[in-house]
Every structure is written in C-alpha cells, then in structure tokens.
C-alpha cells in the first residue's frame, strides 16, 4: 500500500505549497526542455536565433546612435547597448512567454494535476536558457572592444542584475498568466505593455540622460531600470546609484510576491475556466 495520502478540498490561495513545488521539479525541467527542443526544431540556425535578435538590434541602435544622438556612455556603445538588450530580452520574453503559457498548456491543465505554478515558471526558464546563449557574444564584445573589467565586480554586478531581472520576469509573468486565465484581452495587451515599458527603461540610453528628478524617481520604480543599471556597473565607469538599486530590488521582490499571490488565487479554478 502506498504511503501517499492527501486531502482534497477547495484550497486557500494563501497556502503556498513550496514542498510540493519541489517534488515536481522534474516536470518543471521537462517542460522547459520540451519548449527549448520544440522551439529550435527544424530551424537552420537553431539556438543561434537567440543571439541573432539582440545582435541585430545592437547593430541597428549603434548605427542610429552614431549618426543621430551622441551621449557619453563610458564604454563603447555596442557593448553598452548589447548589455542592456540581453537583460531586457530576458525580462520581456520571460514575462511574455509566461503570460501566454497557461493558455498554451490548457490541454494538460484540464487533464492532469500538478502545481500549476510550474507552467509560467518553466516558461521563464526557457528564456533564461536563451539568455545564457547570448552571453557568448557579450563576452566576445567585451574582449573585442577591450573593455576593462574587474572580474569580481563584473560577476557580482552581473549576478545581482540577473537576479533582479529573473524576479521581475517571474513576477510579471505570474501576473500576466493569472490575468490571462480570466481575461483573454491580456494576450493582446502583453506585447503592447512590454513595448511601452521598453521605452521607460534605460536600455538604449544611459540613465544620465534623464535630467528630471521626478522622471528619475518614476524610473527607479521600474525594476528593470535598476537591474540593467547594476549589470552595467560592472563594465562602465558610471558609478553605482545605490538608491536606485535598493528601490529596484525592493520593487522586483514585491512584484514577484504580488504576482505569485495573484497567480495562486487564480489558478484554483483554472481547469474550469480555460
């Protein structure tokens, strides 16, 4: 006789069954692995697509920057913009994929039980794997342009920026996914929202171009502004804005927890609604 025993009742959304999430970690990996496999099956460039996108944007923005606007970024502009683009790419694709993931997996959700949080979380993991591939070019650019880095500082800043980005992507992803279960409008709103947010994030321009205090404060509430700022502190001479980092970190953790709570609340009935 099995030792498995559990009670089925209407779950309370405040209950976070972390132990169960851990038990289902294999499925979490499997779903991400499947998505990566499927994504690049029958493609010529395969995983190269992950690099191609930020590379193309980097070239585009570099040309644009050279001819139109010139602001001192401290490091060669291609390295500067590429570092911003890959972090932004991780956030945007992570949050966007997670947002649509519940609908994409509706047929599994309606037939099998598992902690639903795995689905948006594994969508973010897929973006993280793409991100890892783009790092190859990042390192190559740093070497090519001879950017002076101090490895411990570089890695520390990079890790902190990555952590904030992942938290923000998960939080926004949970939020989008939860809203998407109930309202299909969200699916159309997500790309639009992300596009808006892109312009409110110092991806292609340095923070120093923002002169207005009020605007700087609003920007600091955007966790991606802080995440990209931190990650760049490892390569540029731009000094670390600790206040921005603190608010950004707090904002990303808050978004993560808020998204998680909202998701937990809405996933209960998702099999009936999807």
């Amino acid at each position, binding site marked *: 006789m099995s030792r498995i025993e559990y009670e089925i009742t209407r779950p309370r959304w405040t209950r976070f069954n972390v132990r169960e999430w851990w038990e289902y970690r*294999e*499925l979490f990996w*499997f779903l991400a692995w499947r998505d990566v496999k499927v994504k690049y099956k029958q493609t010529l460039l395969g995983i190269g697509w992950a690099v191609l996108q930020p590379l193309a944007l980097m070239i585009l923005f570099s040309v644009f920057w050279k001819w139109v606007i010139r602001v001192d970024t401290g490091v060669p502009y291609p390295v500067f913009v590429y570092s911003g683009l890959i972090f932004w790419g991780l956030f945007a694709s992570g949050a966007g994929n997670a947002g649509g993931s519940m609908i994409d997996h509706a047929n599994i959700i309606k*037939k099998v039980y598992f902690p639903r949080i795995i689905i948006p979380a594994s969508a973010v993991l897929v973006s993280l794997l793409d991100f890892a591939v783009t790092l190859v070019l990042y390192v190559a650019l740093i070497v090519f342009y001879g950017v002076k880095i101090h490895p411990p500082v570089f890695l520390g800043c990079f890790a902190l920026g990555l952590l904030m980005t992942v938290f923000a992507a998960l939080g926004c992803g949970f939020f989008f996914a939860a809203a998407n279960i109930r309202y299909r*409008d969200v699916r159309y709103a997500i790309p639009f929202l992300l596009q808006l947010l892109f312009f409110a994030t110092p991806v292609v321009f340095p923070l120093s171009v923002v002169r207005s205090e009020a605007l700087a404060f609003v920007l600091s509430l955007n966790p991606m502004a802080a995440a990209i700022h931190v990650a760049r502190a490892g390569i540029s001479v731009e000094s670390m804005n600790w206040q921005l980092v603190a608010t950004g970190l707090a904002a990303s953790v808050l978004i993560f927890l808020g998204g998680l709570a909202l998701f937990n609340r809405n996933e209960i009935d998702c099999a009936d*609604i999807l």
Partner: protein
Amino acid sequence: MKPVIESRSVTKKYQIAGNLPAGYRTLRESLSSWFRPAGNRKEFTALDEVSFDVLPGERWGIIGENGAGKTTLLKIIARITPPTKGSLVVRGRVASLLEVGTGFHPELTGRENIFLNGSILGLSRREIQGKFDEIVAFSEVENFLDTPVKHYSTGMWARLAFSVAAHLEPEILLVDEVLSVGDADFQDKSLRKMSDVSEQGRTILFVSHNMPAVRRLCTRCLWIGRGKIRRTGTPDEVIDAYRSTVRDDSPGFADLASVERRRGTQEIRLARIELKNRGGETTGTYAIGDDLNIHLFLEPRRPLKKVKIIVGIEEPGGERLCTMYENDSGFSLKDVSLPVHVSLGIGDLRFCPGRYLVTVLLCSEIFNYTCDVYDDPGACIGFTMVNNCVTNRALMRQGGLLYLTPRWEFHGERP
C-alpha cells in the same frame, strides 16, 4: 481496512453566465457585470453533497445520465478541479486513462515523448528509465523511436500514448468511457487494462454508459442523478433501479429541425420523426406483438442522387439490438430535391418491456466501406415496450431483450 477514497459532502458548483461558464469572458463583459444585479448570475450544482467510501481493491462503476456529474466527480478525485465545498481523502497514487497522450508534442521523437508524457503523468525520470524497454515493447514502435511523432500513424501514436499510461501502475485507476469516444480498439484496450489492473488488487472507478460492462467488471456501483447520489450497491441492484426510473415521456414524435449540433454535412437532414402504431396513432408506448411504424421527414438542402437510410434500435445501455438498411428491404431513395416522407414498418414487436432508442443515419452510397455522412442526429427518439400480459411470468431484462414465442411440439415418447 482504511478506504482509499473517502468522499465527504463533496459539492461542486459552477457559475453560469448566459451560455458561457463563468470566468471565460472578456474584461468588458466583466466590467459591465459589476453594474448588473448579482441575482442575475446563475449557479449550476454539478455535485451536491456526495459522500461515499471506496475500499482498496473495489471496482466501482459510476452510472447516470449525461450531465449527472459523473465526470466532474472523476475530475475532483484526479485533483484537476477543486470541490466548492466538502472534502475527499485519497490514499494512493491516482491515474486516469483519460490522460492518454497528454502533452505529446508532434515535433518530438517517440523516445522524447515517452519521457515527457511519463513525467507529466507523475513518473520520475528513474521510474521511466526503469520501465522504458517495457513501454517500448508494448507499444510496438521500436523502429520509430527516434522519429518525430508527427510522422506516426494515428494507430502508432495511440499505441505509444496508451503504453505510457498503461505503465503508470497507480493504486487507483480512473476510467471515463464517455470521454474515450469513438475508437473501439482503444475502448477494448481500456477494458482489458482494467481487468489486468483489478487482478493486481488495485482500485478502479469506471464511469460508463455501458451497463453490461459495468455488470461484468465492477463489484460496486454508484448511480448519480442530477449531482446527487441516488443509490449505491451491487451493480445488478443499482442498474436495475436506474433502468426502472428511465421512464418514457416521449410522445412518439420529435422535431429535429432546430437541433443544431449534429454530425454530417447536413446536405439532407432528418427534420421530424414519428412513431405510429397499427392504428396510425402517434405514440411512444408499444406492447409485445404490436406494429411499429417509423416515419421520417427528410429535408434536402440540395438535390441528391441517392440517400441511404440506416435505422437502428438500441437499449439505453448502448447495446444495439438491430440495424436496418433501406436496401435490405429492396427500398431505395433516389433523386431527392424536395422534402420527402419515408416510413418503415416493423410488424410483431418482440422486445422485452423497457425503454428503447431509435437512431437514424443518412448518408451517401457506401463505397469501399466509406461514405459521406449527410446527417447523424444519433438516438433521436425513444419508445417504451410495456408488458401487456402476454405471459404471467415477469419479463426481466436479464432474461434477454427478446420475447419470442416459438412453436413448441411434442414428438412422442422415445423409449
């Protein structure tokens, strides 16, 4: 022995907004509903205070009409949807044969899909690796393991999917026959798997309309009607009780013109069906020995050269008593361009007391075992056979569905 499933007052309610289940709506609809009185929202009780205990090794048949809540109950036990109220204690791993092929991805190879599907169904990597050879052998797709399943035939796909599900070895197996529609081969495999599983002392919950299968396979039976438990007991007693309540309220005719969702191209449709007795009266009640005349009113949407008409009689358990083709009686319907009225008469009915259903299928000429289905409204009308005292013994359905009065003769003594 501790029950493997203890259900305590399990209740499931759905909110219905118009024709849509609650939740599936756009933001605009949701916003506008805030300004509507709350009383406008309808609630539908799918399960109402359902309590029962299932002991280890028992095989339960769950019966009831469509929409009675049988599938909802399985979904709650499988934890796919939560109960609105009440609780269930489950002891053991649950798997269901309605999950066959869940998560299969056409772009992935057979090997990859075995791992993915197994993992979705709750097997660990190590367990899948341990059973991998067995699964592959059972599925008979060894030579195509590294081919994407999109290149598989439907049969190969189904075999692979089924063999993963068959190797789950759950303590509790849920089978919903209603959901595994169509494929007779698959139904057969499910049933065989069920008897294998039951021989290993595992517990089975089997939702079915197939009463003979429930009688054959199950040790207990649960009858759900409109979300409530109507009766539990041995399959024989529960099925008999269920059958006795399926009353005839059919007036002997049915208008089908407004029935929208039905299979077929609808190039011609059955608009109305009438059942008439020997005296030409439209009725839904017949006695043994009566005549039954089935009148069909067909409406073509475009001129058709030939229409085949296939009429069947079934008992509510789904068992077919007979299938009648128009050409068996030398009849044919050709060059139809205007609405037509066709009838078939069966003399001297010999069906035992109880309820029966008439099915109709309109199709094109059958060629190479295939045809275009024009209209398939399914079991579109029922009739009831009553005992008119042709015999003084009680006619039980267990004694067979036909009441025959053959000629008996005595041929003398043989020393």
